[in-house]
């Protein structure tokens, strides 16, 4: 029922989820809000799926749905990274070198 290709995708998913959990469980509560907006920006990568839908000229319906999806995903990518940076700028203490 499942193709080898499908199993390979699952393989990637499981390993990525595992690595993600390991990396993210080291983020201190101090930065949990920036973490949320950062992962939100990164998952705006669904933009790459929307781009193909909007630009492949499959049919009118797909193009329109793709256009709305591109708009939504771009809001998340652009807005997500900008607001994460805006927040991270707040986190400082005396003596920290300002980048």
């Amino acid at each position, binding site marked *: 029922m499942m193709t080898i290709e499908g199993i390979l995708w699952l393989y990637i998913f499981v390993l990525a989820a595992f690595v993600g*959990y390991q990396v993210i469980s080291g*983020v201190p509560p101090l930065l949990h809000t920036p973490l*949320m907006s950062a992962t939100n920006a*990164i998952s705006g990568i669904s*933009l790459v799926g929307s781009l193909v839908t909007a630009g492949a000229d499959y049919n009118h319906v797909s193009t329109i749905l*793709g256009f*709305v999806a591109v708009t939504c995903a*771009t809001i998340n*990518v652009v807005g997500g990274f900008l607001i994460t940076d805006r927040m991270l700028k707040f986190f400082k203490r005396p003596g920290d070198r300002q980048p």
Partner: protein
Amino acid sequence: MTPAFIELAYLAASLLFILGLRGLRAPQSARRGMVLAEIGMLIAIGATLLHQHLVSYQWIIAGVVIGSAIGTAMAVLIPMTKMPERIALSHSFGGLAAALVGISEYYRHSGVLGPGKMAALGFEVMLGSLTCTGSLMAFGKLQGMIAERPLTHRLQNGLNLSLLLMTLAMIGYLIPHTTSQALFYIVVGVSFLLGILLVLPIGGADMPVVIALLNSYAGLAAAATGFAISNSVLIVCGALDGASGFFLSLVMSKAMNRSFGNILFGAFGSESAAVIARATAAGRSVRSATVEDVVIVLKNASSIIIIPGYGMAAAHAQHAVRELGDLLERGGATVKYAIHPVAGRMPGHMNVLLAEANVPYDHLYDIDAINDEFSATDVALVVGANDVVNPAAKHDPQSPIYGMPVLDAELARSVLVLKRSMNPGFAKIENELFLRPNTMMLFGDAKETLMQLVHQLKEEG
């Protein structure tokens, strides 16, 4: 560009995303990490634009321009107190994007699909639609457009559970019968409805968990999109986002000592009437103080722990809190901030607000790091927090929050509570801390009260 080259670009992007998230382990490396993630995003998008299926660019350009304008405006204009609302909205956008790509994929193949792809599409539209409307509901509740108290009715859990099972059954049926097109669109419709119904019964105090859970669903929806359109970088990013949301949900539910199931299917607020009745029956009353009384206590304190809660965000009082903290510090006292994981409406909410007000982040302490210090502290100053300082969680098995880890504010020599009114918090639970003999209550808008305190302290030098 060849497919192999695109895949290599996606691999590089995935690595950059993981390294970027790794940067968030410390404030010093966080911004650099985000630059790496941004580079990863540019690489992934650049490679995709060279995809062989892409023939026309006008809709892409239009979507990117409009999306960037809205995204930038939201990021620049939104006040930090509205962060939970923004996060909820962005989960909603992410869910909608996933659902739309799924619908478009199904539509263009008229349902003629392999079973594996059908399963992925089914989960994609279900999770995407559910996240979209669920997050909009969360947004409405945070904004106060929808009643923040839990809206419950007797058949609710049964109804939600059967709708959920029905949706899964329909997806199960679609896998071998992919061309049952009407059924596919019913799945979409029911999932949109389910998102509304699942969040409707959840109260304001449970918002941090709900937002974290929706974060996880948004990630899983993106990963399902990756399975459906065979896109590796989407699977990786969806998995990262899903793992992050799952991790935060665990942290939040642990901080409330409740299980996922309990939060989703057991709305707060029904059993608390008994607690209120009991507390008032005991005949104890609150001690209401004046600004002058509180100033005397503060002036004589050499160690102060400030405990912020949602009330601080609601009153936009973070700058006033910092001003008072600075003044007390200049007077020679040590000032620390105790942050409960579920204070506010989303994970890390209080930290961001205080950081915005220029409180150095090494003054912000987690519950485990500071709870031992209350007994040696002169003043615990509670600003708009309630359930997270309720001692009943430690000793009263009747209390709905019994077992939840709380800040030991009552162990401080004096407890000062700034509060809008005597109304119980969003969980509608009476707080016996307010009735303790060492507690002084100062009623009023937190920001105004704090400014009066600052003014008075300055006057008296």
